[in-house]
């Protein structure tokens, strides 16, 4: 009876810790987002859609991050981490128009070549994806070990 109570308490504590960890991480990302938006405010007025793009990216990223943290200790954590890495890659490719950012202000047309940035970001995204896959393999491996023993 006491052991069962302790087990329930332990699970509750574990879940509360997960929620706190997710909340702290989400807060950090939101603080970074707020600073970044203020930092880019003068440029955002010149490039419509930039703020919206960063906002949408942050919302989806934070949601995936929270779900992933809440699912920690399960295989789903790694699935959501992989989804987060894939989302970063796809979103950047989609919104940066394959690295060539073009905008027209009246008679002035502006082209910014962000292909180098995109390549580095995609490599980092792929590295994140690889990390998630390795974590998933490691998780499955660790789960399988006691059965084999």
């Amino acid at each position, binding site marked *: 009876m006491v052991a069962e109570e302790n087990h329930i308490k332990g699970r509750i504590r574990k879940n509360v810790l997960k929620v706190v960890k997710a909340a702290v991480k989400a807060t950090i990302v939101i603080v970074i987002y707020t600073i970044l938006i203020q930092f880019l405010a003068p*440029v955002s007025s010149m490039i419509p859609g930039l703020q919206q793009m960063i906002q949408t990216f942050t919302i989806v990223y934070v949601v995936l991050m929270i779900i992933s943290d809440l699912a920690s200790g399960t295989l789903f954590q790694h699935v959501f981490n992989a989804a987060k890495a894939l989302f970063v890659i796809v979103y950047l490719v989609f919104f940066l128009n394959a690295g060539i950012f073009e905008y027209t202000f009246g*008679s*002035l*047309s*502006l*082209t910014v070549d962000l292909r180098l*940035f995109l390549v580095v970001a995609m490599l*980092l995204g792929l590295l994140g994806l690889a*990390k998630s896959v*390795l974590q998933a393999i490691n998780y499955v491996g660790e789960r399988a070990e006691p059965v084999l023993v």
Partner: protein
Amino acid sequence: MRVPIRIIGIATSAFWIFLIIFSASAIYSMKDFQISLGQPQTSTTEDHELLFSFPVSVINTGLYEIADFNISRNFLDEEGSAVAGGSISIPVIGQGQTINVTQNVKLNVTDLLQTHQSLLNNDTDLTTNTRISMLTAGVIPVQASSNSSMPWGAPLYNLALGTPQLAMFNATYSMATISLSFENHAFFDLTGAVWLRAYSNANELIGQGQTSIQVAQHSPYDRNLEVYVPSGAGPIVRLEVYFVTTFFNYGQEIAAHGG
């Protein structure tokens, strides 16, 4: 396996932080980069070309230096073909640096007017295409282009020959007085000679006259030209006017009424 995964995680996070900070600061830095393109000064060269000198001022108070800064400017005709162009490059613009340069664009008026004769008589706007390219923070290529118009003033605007007025000169010749008028709207003074040829009903050259001209820019010209024609040659039905100037040679045929 946990240690390598953790190292990958730490390395990825570190690179992401670096990438975000670098990108954000590079974009932020662009707001402190100013380019001002001034109004052109027009002059003529020894080769009788028009020289447009555009003052360019570049101020970089951003966080990063600007590399491979280039401004190219082309004058385009109505069909979009380049008739003249020039470019200027600055290899590096450091932080806090202000650079003032002059971009020169030479316009060969002779070539331009040979291919676009309508520019001799009609005021119009030449399209100017300005293209600016640079490497921001040393790695991000940025290019901006803009079209604007620049007024072109015709050197022979409203060119007109008056009706020949015949007067007896002597027993064999008559003197035809023909008024020649135009306005020089061009950026340059017109210096040279005008030839006038008179043709009879039988399309025979019956007389010619010549005078030198010197018309300052944005000034009108209105003078009478004299041509001596044989008294029995009949009326003048056709006139040809030729301009031989430092910038262009041009001939035009005009039907004469009366005379």
